[in-house]
């Protein structure tokens, strides 16, 4: 089932001479694949057949929330009315602005935040924007704080985003129960503390029960509390970051609001803030004005994190999802996500050291290599969990079935887990055997990088 590269099918070199430009302004020629539409259709159809999506089967990737992506939101995003140029005057794009305004409003209500910016084009961009908001706030207050505190078990993006914003990162060890260690926090916090970034429930699926105490400690030191929205799917309608004391947060719309992951993107990472931080949000935001909508630049905006207004089609899909589900649907989505995680955990043999967890749990592969367990699970026709992270659980199998799975599918997943749990290291090491590609030599791929078809000839 090997599908040749486009370049291996047919390639053509076209001269750019005799065109409308003088030769010294043009390239000499262009060489690219040259295939007909029927060949193109087969090429990508076949490629798709070796790719696994949410509609292919269960996809219990912890922290990634691979929930079902409703088809109707794609239709709406493809609507000609949604195809607007960003420089069109706002009086002619009232529909677009109204939708963005409504989404700002809905997200604010869902997160318990006073003001929302939709500009960040992904979760990490939301972190970067949110931290820059915090930085602008501190600077406006004449404070030059240099550190961002981040629990050891947090998403890697937290660390990278804080660093990109120019902060020193202080990593916080957790307590024995897998949560923030208040003593360690007290010890780390201080006048250099710009913010603490926290996911809640955390990456073990545990709710940070001491969140109010945490907020108090950080706030007392003059720091801000940043909420990483990656796990918001656990809490919809049950708890809101704003009510817990968070000052800034980002939403991962492809995790919480069912926009498709697209093989890695696009996402969108709106941020929400308290009133106090609203003047520092990215420019512009949508405001209501005399029955219509307009863009306004926040007074002390931190600037921009996207050349235009962010990932509009993704935001549109997220709005449609929220408008479809409403209060009852959103709360039910979280309830079923948590029920599914707990039910699945109940069925599998691997040990789960921490709990009570919510929408995801982290099992330990014990003596087995978690990465090998994942490869072997592919042979059972299911997607494996996230592996080897967070490191607090040895050989972690970070599992999040989402609300979309039926009991029947959860039972199948459990059967796959348990079958692999009983297999030998040799079997695991040689897995997968039933996939389009067998185990791939990643070490060599990195040692001898070949990143284009041009490099294959070398």
């Amino acid at each position, binding site marked *: 089932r090997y599908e040749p590269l*486009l*370049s291996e099918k047919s390639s053509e070199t*076209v001269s750019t001479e005799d*065109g*409308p*430009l003088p030769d010294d*302004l043009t390239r000499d020629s*262009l060489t*690219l*694949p040259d295939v007909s539409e029927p060949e193109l259709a087969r090429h*990508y159809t076949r*490629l*798709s057949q070796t*790719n696994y*999506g*949410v*509609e292919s089967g269960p996809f219990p*990737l912890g922290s990634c929330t691979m929930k079902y992506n409703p088809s*109707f939101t794609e239709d709406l995003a493809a609507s000609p009315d*949604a195809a607007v*140029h960003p*420089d069109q005057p706002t009086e002619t794009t009232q*529909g*677009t602005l109204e939708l963005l305004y409504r989404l700002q409003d*809905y997200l604010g209500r869902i997160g*318990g935040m006073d003001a929302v910016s939709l500009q960040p084009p992904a979760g*990490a961009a939301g972190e*970067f924007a949110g931290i820059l908001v915090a930085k602008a706030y501190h600077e406006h207050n004449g404070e030059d704080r240099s550190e961002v505190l981040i629990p050891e078990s947090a998403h*890697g993006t937290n660390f*990278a985003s804080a660093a*990109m914003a120019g902060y020193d990162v202080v990593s916080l060890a957790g307590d024995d129960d897998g949560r923030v260690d208040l003593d360690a926090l007290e010890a780390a916090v201080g006048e250099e503390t710009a913010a603490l970034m926290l996911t809640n429930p955390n990456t073990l699926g545990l709710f940070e029960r001491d*969140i*109010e105490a945490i907020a108090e400690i950080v706030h007392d030191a003059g720091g801000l509390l940043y909420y990483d929205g990656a796990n918001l799917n656990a809490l919809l309608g*049950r708890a809101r970051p704003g009510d*817990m004391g968070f000052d800034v947060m980002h939403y991962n719309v*492809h995790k919480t609001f069912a926009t498709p992951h*697209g093989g*890695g993107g*696009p996402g969108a990472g709106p941020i929400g803030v308290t009133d106090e931080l609203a003047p520092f949000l990215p420019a512009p935001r949508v405001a209501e004005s005399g029955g219509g909508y307009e863009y306004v630049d926040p007074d002390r905006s931190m600037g*921009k994190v996207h050349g*235009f207004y962010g*990932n509009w089609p993704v935001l549109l899909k997220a709005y449609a999802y*929220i*408008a479809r589900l*409403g209060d*009852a*649907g959103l709360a*039910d*989505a979280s309830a079923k996500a948590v*029920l*599914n995680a707990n039910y699945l955990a109940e069925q599998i043999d691997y040990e789960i050291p921490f709990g009570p967890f919510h929408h995801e749990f982290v099992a330990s592969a014990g003596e087995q290599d978690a990465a090998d367990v994942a*490869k072997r699970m592919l042979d059972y026709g299911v*997607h494996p969990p996230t592996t080897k992270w967070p490191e607090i659980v040895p050989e972690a199998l970070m599992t999040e079935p989402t609300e979309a*799975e039926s009991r029947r599918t959860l039972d199948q997943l459990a059967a796959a887990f348990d079958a692999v749990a009983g297999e030998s290291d040799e079997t695991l090491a040689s897995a997968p055997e039933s996939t389009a590609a*067998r185990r791939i030599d990643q070490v060599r*791929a*990195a040692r001898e990088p070949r*990143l*284009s078809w*041009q490099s294959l000839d070398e």
Partner: protein
Amino acid sequence: MSEDDARGTPYAPHTAATTAAMLDAVGVDSEAALFDIPESVAFDSDFDIPERSERETRSHVEGILGRNDDLTAFLGRGHYDHYVPSIVDDLAGRSEFLTSYTQYQPEIAQGFLQALFEYQSMLVELTGLGVANCSMYDAATALGEAATLSQRLRSVSGDRILVPDLLRAGKRAVLDNYAAGPGLTVETYPTTDGNVDLDALRGALGDDVAMVYAENPTVRGTIEEGLAAVGDAADAHDALFCLGTDPVAMALLETPASVGADVVVGDASSLGTGTAYGFGLGLFVTREAYLRQVPGRLVGAAEDDSGRRAYTLTLQTREQHIRRERATSNICTNQAWVALRAAMHAAWLGPDGLVDLAESCVTRARDLAARIDEISGVRAPVHDRHHFREFVAHTDQPAEAIRADLAEEGYAVHAVGDHEIQICATETTERAVDDFVDTLAEVAR
């Protein structure tokens, strides 16, 4: 699923009976009992968001979007509308692509990996440089990443970034934020008649410059004529030369490699996406020498256990999920699916089609400028240059009034100066050109 019967999310399969049985298996008597949330922070109110059937939701959202006016947009300046063939929607919309995750399990993600590898390869051909990543968010963030790259290279020193004075404000604002972290300052150099003022640039250059940025075509649609000299000037001070462009332009214009570009950034969503309110696809291509400092994901060719070629994400130790605060960038979610669409569109066009499209960008702009130049009260193009897609026209009337009058008549143009409008022409506005010229003639006199 039924309209009158909604009791929760339509996207969970649980019947009341299954829910009860599952709660039983877990050993709790309610869903609420599964939540470990202290009373004091529990939310016991409503969002006050109504639930709607799918039909009602579509109707609701279509109603909102319907409030956009139906304008013919002769707009560009970084976001371009080219005709996207149907097959792109059809193939990219296949759920195996659209709903898949980042390819951390390459054995079941070969299709997307290969498509991204092909995307990278096309950019390598278009730029002449060795390494393309498989996407950034947009042109602005790609430019920001180029700036931070300059700080990670031992061959580069300095903390000044030079950009043209005409740089789009939004792009500049993003660059400022990316530059601030590593302590860079962004400064402008002058342009002359739309293009780089080479002498002025040389004057601004010094060994404290880390990167020089130029665009081709420029934001005003002019085509640069001395980019190799810009590259040489930057090189003379060990500064990176970063070039902003897009894949359609690259199909025709001098290759970035041939003018000495070290990094190429820009927006590739001009292929595969069409007008989408600034929704972008940041392209990022650089020299092989800088490979280990590249931000974002890279797909590489590999072999599997059976010895057959396979593809995988590679060099992941550059990335945030492994290197955390020492990563080359914080980018995680990127624009992979938009890159897939761009690659499909490029493959559909083929080299013939892509060169034809690029040439039409030159001729459409030239022809429309010539027609507009005939209009009394308008002079076009303002810049005595070759143009790509778009050009600036001088209007005797205030530009803002012209812009507003045209909007009344159903046409959008940019007002870029007190008496300057900017007009972009692609194949998608072809049918409206005659009426547009007539309308402009009326409002411009």
